């Protein structure tokens, strides 16, 4: 039989793994993204699956192209977009998508204003995303059950068609909050069955948020002193219990405000200052936050 592959020919899996640079990206992911254990685990699995699929193809073993449409669910600021960006890179390196770019779209980019406007709009976005990854943020807005004439349904149908028929051309990632995505999938069973990977992004723990803050400061060439670190830990503990908390995004905003206060303090202090002082965030900068005075609703000051 010609079909049987030469079973005794050995393939160097390690070499192939090295060549694909996947480990590099996964390491980068581990370094730059704090926490997110289940997500990283799934990324490892997907990378492994794709490598093995490619190996099997090389050996002439028949393989169906795995479907890699995904849904990312999680609270705001848990890193869905960041991971999607990395996902595009990984898929490109293992040869699943040809270009590896990420096109971010929301309802506005897909759904038109009047009859006949939706199809060309959706088609254009799909064409842009071909060869890469299409990331649809807050995908549940596509479907508005309260308005049966809503054009979102048209966009959904086109998406489904392309997801099924042009699997080799693009990967679709839907993202949004968990509960609303669940209702969205319930009312659009076609989506649910076409998406193989459902990744849930957990909220960050306090120590993870702290690590994120340190990482962000380090990237911007700032640092905490010991007292400031203690103050920021207290700040975070308070902040997570207050409304509008958006995980890493809140941390980023907090740091932006810290920089503001630090600059203000330095200017008020005047005189000659050292480079160390320019990069240091003091406990006072943090303790000035309104979070310590009962949160956003307590007063107007920052």
């Amino acid at each position, binding site marked *: 039989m010609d079909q049987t592959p030469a079973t005794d020919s050995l393939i160097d899996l390690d070499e192939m793994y090295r060549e694909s640079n996947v480990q590099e990206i996964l390491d980068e992911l581990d370094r730059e993204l704090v926490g997110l254990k289940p997500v990283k685990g799934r990324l490892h699995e997907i990378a492994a699956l794709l490598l093995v699929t490619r190996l099997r193809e090389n050996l002439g073993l028949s393989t169906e192209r795995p479907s890699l449409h995904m849904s990312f669910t999680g609270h705001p600021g848990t890193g869905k977009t960041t991971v999607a960006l990395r996902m595009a890179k990984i898929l490109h390196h293992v040869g699943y998508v*040809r*270009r590896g*770019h990420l096109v971010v779209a929301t309802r506005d980019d897909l759904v038109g204003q009047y009859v006949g406007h939706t199809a*060309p709009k959706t088609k254009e976005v*799909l*064409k*842009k995303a*071909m*060869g*890469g990854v299409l990331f649809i943020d807050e995908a549940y807005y596509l479907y508005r059950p309260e308005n049966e004439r809503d054009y979102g349904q048209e966009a959904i149908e086109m998406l489904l068609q392309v997801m099924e028929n*042009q699997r080799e*051309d*693009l990967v679709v990632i839907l993202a949004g909050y968990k509960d609303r995505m669940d209702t969205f999938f319930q009312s659009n069973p076609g989506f649910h069955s076409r998406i193989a990977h459902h990744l849930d992004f957990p909220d960050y723990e306090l120590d993870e948020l702290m690590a994120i803050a340190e990482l962000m400061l380090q990237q911007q060439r700032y640092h905490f002193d010991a007292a400031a670190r203690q103050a920021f830990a207290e700040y975070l503990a308070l902040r997570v219990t207050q409304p509008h908390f958006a995980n890493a995004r809140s941390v980023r905003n907090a740091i932006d405000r810290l920089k503001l206060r630090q600059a203000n303090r330095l200017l008020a202090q005047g005189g000659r200052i050292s480079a160390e002082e320019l990069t240091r965030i003091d406990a006072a900068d943090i303790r000035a936050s309104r979070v310590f005075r009962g949160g956003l609703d307590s007063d107007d000051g920052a």
Partner: protein
Amino acid sequence: MRITQGTFSFLPDLTDEQITAQVQYCLDNDWPVSVEYTDDPHPRNVYWDMWGMPLFDLKDAAGVMTEINACRAAFPNQYIRVNGYDRRLGRQTTAISFIVNRPKQEPGFYLERQEVADRQVRYTLRPYAADKPGGQRYE
């Protein structure tokens, strides 16, 4: 008579795979690609009909191929060409243009000789297909 024009006029018709590769070359050079069709094959006819808008911001040839195939489905028996436009200052011109679809029957051209004063002859090319009104030429 097989009509040729554009960048690969000296070659046999490109296969889809070759078209994809050429389109990808355009996109890699940052040339927006457009698809045009016509049923008037005269070489001086520069105004072909546009198939939709030029395709901006694409990264991968698959998007262009979708449009080419849609155009082929709508006009299977007309000429379809693909243009790549180089917008760089100093060039600002069509950088590549080639035919990707042609009618099954191409009747060719009639060479008309017009005798004018002093035994001069003026030549005119007239496509046989253009005898019929637009839209009914290659049926």
